[in-house]
C-alpha cells in the first residue's frame, strides 16, 4: 500500500523534464549539465525524453499506479500531451537521458557513435580540402575559355559533382547518428545551415507521413492527372487559414489549442469560402542550401463550362520568382505583387471544387538540371541559382480557361517543388465574393431541363373504342 501511495505521490507531472536542461542559459562550453540521477525502478518512467510522442513504453508504467489507487477506477479523460516549450526562441541544451553506469550498453553505444562520427568528420574535412582544390582548378579553366578547354572543363565538372555528392553523404553521416543532433531536430532546434539537420528534417517530412498524406490526397482527388501529369514534391508546403466555423474552433480546441484562431489545413479537407476570403498563409520549407526561384500558382480545375458541357480551370493566384531556400524557411510574404489573389468562389449547384496551390521550380540558371555544383557555387558566390522568369500578368478575362500544362511547358517549370490542395463547396461568402470582388451576377448551376417526351400525346385520348 505504501509503495502505491508513494508512486501516486511521485506520479509523473504534467510536464516531464526528460533530459533537457531546466535553465535557458546554456552552460559553459566544457561542462555539460549533469544528467538526471540514477533513479530507482519506480521513478525511471520520468527520465524518458520529452520529445517523443506518447509511446506505449513511457505511458504504460505510471498509468498502472494511477488506476488502482484506492480501489476506485478513475475514468481517464484523454488530454493531448503537451510538448515542453523548447524551440529556437526558448532553447535548451541536450543532456544524456541516463547517467553513466545505469545502462552500460548505452554508454558504450554513445562512445561508439561519437568515435565513428569523429572518424567520418575527419574524412569529410579531408575530402572538402580536395574539393576546394578541384574547384580552384575548375575556376581557372573557366577563366581560360576556348574550344580545347571545354571538354576538360566538363570532365572536371563531372568529377566535382561526384566528389560533392560524396561530401554531402559524409557530412550527413558524420552527425546523423549523434543523439544530440537527433534531439535538436526533434525539438525545433535544428540549424538549417548544417546538412545533417536538413537531412533529418527532410527525412521526417518524407517518411513520417506528411508527404504520404499529401500524395494520397492528390492522387485520390485526381489532381495529378487533371492538372499535371506528374508531381514529385521536394518542398514542404503548408497552408494555414483563419478559422471561421464553430466546427473548426472545436477542432482547434480538441488539438489543445483552444485560444488559437489559425487552422493548419490538412490536404484535401473541406474549407468554408469564408476561410479563404483573404489569401491563405503559406509556409514553405525547402531543403536546399542555395536560393532558388519558384512560381506560385493557385488554380481551381472544377469551374463549370456549360458551352463545352465540361469543366475549365480558373487561375486564382500567381506569383513567379518566389525565393526559397533552407535558410529562409517559414512564411512566404509579398505574394500578391503579380496576379492578384481572387478568393475561391465555388458556384452554387456545382459539386465540390478542388483548390490546388502549386510552387513549381523555375529552370536553373545554367544547364538543364539542378546539381550539387550549382548549389555549392551559388552558396559561395551568393545570388540565385534559378532563372528569373518574366511571366506576364494574367488579365481578368484570361483567368478562366487557364491551361496549367501549357503554362508549365512554355516556361520550363519542373515537376518538383511544393503542392497542396483543399476543397470547397458553395457558402454564403461566395455571394459576397461575386458581389464585391468579381462584380458579376452570381450564377446558379443545375442540371439541364429534361425534355418532356410525352408533351404531344399528353391529354389526348389513348383508347378508341
Amino acid at each position, binding site marked *: 500500500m505504501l509503495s502505491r501511495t508513494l508512486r501516486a505521490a511521485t506520479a509523473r507531472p504534467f510536464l516531464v523534464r526528460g533530459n533537457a536542461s531546466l535553465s535557458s542559459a546554456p552552460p559553459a562550453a566544457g561542462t555539460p549539465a549533469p544528467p538526471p540521477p540514477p*533513479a530507482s525502478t519506480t521513478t525511471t*518512467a520520468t527520465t524518458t525524453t520529452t520529445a*517523443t510522442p506518447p509511446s506505449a513504453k513511457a505511458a504504460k508504467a505510471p498509468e498502472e499506479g494511477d488506476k488502482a489507487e484506492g480501489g476506485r477506477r478513475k475514468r481517464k479523460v484523454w488530454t493531448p500531451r503537451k510538448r515542453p516549450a523548447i524551440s529556437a526562441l526558448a532553447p535548451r541544451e541536450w543532456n544524456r537521458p541516463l547517467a553513466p553506469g545505469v*545502462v552500460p550498453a548505452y554508454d558504450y553505444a*554513445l562512445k561508439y557513435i561519437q568515435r565513428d562520427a569523429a572518424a567520418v568528420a575527419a574524412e569529410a574535412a579531408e575530402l572538402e580540402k580536395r574539393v576546394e582544390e578541384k574547384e580552384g582548378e575548375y575556376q581557372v579553366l573557366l577563366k581560360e575559355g576556348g574550344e580545347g578547354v571545354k571538354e576538360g572543363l566538363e570532365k572536371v565538372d563531372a568529377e566535382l559533382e561526384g566528389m560533392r555528392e560524396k561530401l554531402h553523404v559524409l557530412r550527413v553521416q558524420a552527425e546523423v547518428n549523434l543523439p544530440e543532433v537527433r*534531439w535538436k531536430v526533434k525539438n525545433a532546434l535544428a540549424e538549417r545551415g548544417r546538412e545533417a539537420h536538413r537531412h533529418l528534417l527532410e527525412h521526417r517530412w518524407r517518411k513520417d507521413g506528411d508527404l504520404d498524406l499529401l500524395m494520397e490526397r492528390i492522387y485520390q482527388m485526381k489532381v495529378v492527372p487533371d492538372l499535371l501529369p506528374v508531381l514529385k514534391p521536394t518542398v514542404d508546403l503548408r497552408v494555414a487559414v483563419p478559422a471561421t466555423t464553430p466546427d473548426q474552433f472545436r477542432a482547434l480546441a480538441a488539438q489543445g489549442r483552444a485560444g488559437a484562431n489559425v487552422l493548419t489545413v490538412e490536404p484535401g479537407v473541406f474549407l468554408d469560402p469564408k476561410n479563404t476570403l483573404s489569401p491563405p498563409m503559406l509556409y514553405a520549407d525547402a531543403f536546399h542550401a542555395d536560393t532558388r526561384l519558384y512560381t506560385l500558382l493557385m488554380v481551381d480545375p472544377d469551374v463549370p463550362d456549360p458551352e463545352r458541357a465540361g469543366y475549365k480551370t480558373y487561375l486564382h493566384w500567381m506569383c513567379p520568382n518566389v525565393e526559397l531556400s533552407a535558410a529562409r524557411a517559414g512564411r512566404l510574404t509579398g505574394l500578391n505583387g503579380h496576379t492578384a489573389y481572387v478568393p475561391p468562389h465555388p458556384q452554387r449547384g456545382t459539386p465540390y471544387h478542388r483548390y490546388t496551390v502549386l510552387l513549381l521550380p523555375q529552370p536553373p540558371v545554367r544547364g538543364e538540371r539542378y546539381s550539387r555544383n550549382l548549389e555549392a557555387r551559388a552558396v559561395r558566390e551568393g545570388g540565385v541559382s534559378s532563372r528569373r522568369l518574366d511571366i506576364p500578368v494574367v488579365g481578368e478575362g484570361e483567368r478562366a480557361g487557364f491551361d496549367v500544362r501549357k503554362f508549365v511547358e512554355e516556361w520550363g517549370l519542373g515537376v518538383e517543388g511544393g503542392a497542396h490542395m483543399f476543397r470547397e463547396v458553395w457558402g454564403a461568402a461566395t455571394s459576397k465574393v461575386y458581389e464585391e470582388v468579381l462584380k458579376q451576377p452570381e450564377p446558379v448551376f443545375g442540371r439541364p431541363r429534361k425534355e418532356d417526351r410525352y408533351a404531344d400525346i399528353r391529354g389526348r385520348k389513348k383508347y378508341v373504342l
Partner: protein
Amino acid sequence: MSFLRPASSSSKAAFRNTTAIRHYAGKPDTSLGDPKRENLRRALYPSNIRNRPTPVGTWRPDVARALQRAIPSVQAHETIERAWLLHKRHVRKQREAELSRKFEKMREAMDELYKLDSQLYLQANRADDPRAKSAQEMEMAKKLKVSEVRTMDARIPGLFPRELKVPTDTPSRTGWNYDYKPFQRPL
C-alpha cells in the same frame, strides 16, 4: 424423504431469465466438414484485435514492457539500436569490400591467364560436376556395399559436412551414438 424441489428453486424458476439464444440465427459450426471456407475467411479477413503476437513475430505485446524495464529511456534505446546497426554496417561493408577485392584480383588473374595460355585458361574455367566420381572414388566404390555407395554419392565434395548440426536445447531421443564412424569422401 421428500423429493420435492426446495421452494427457492421453484421461485427461481418463476423468475428465470428468459432471453433465449436464437439457435436459428447462430453461426454455422465450421469445425465439421471442409475447412476451405473457414481458411479463406480467415485469410481474407484477419482479426485486428491486438490480443496475441502476430504470426510471424512482427509485433509482440510483451516487448514494450520488458524494454521499458531494461532501458527506461526511449532515446537511449534508439541510440543503442543505431550504434548496433552502425557496427553491423561497418562489418558488412568490410566483408563486402574484402570479397570484392578478392573477386577483382581473381578477375585480373584470369585475364592475364587468358592472354598467356588459352588452354590453361579453359581448364581453369571448367566447372566441376559435383556428382562426378574420380578414379580413386571408382576404386573405392568397387569394394563398398550398394547402400554405402549411395551414401558416398550423397556427400557432395565441398558442401558442408552432414555431421554439422544445429545445437539443440535437449539431447536426441536416440541418445549419443558411441559407435559412430565418420565417413570420408576422398577429395
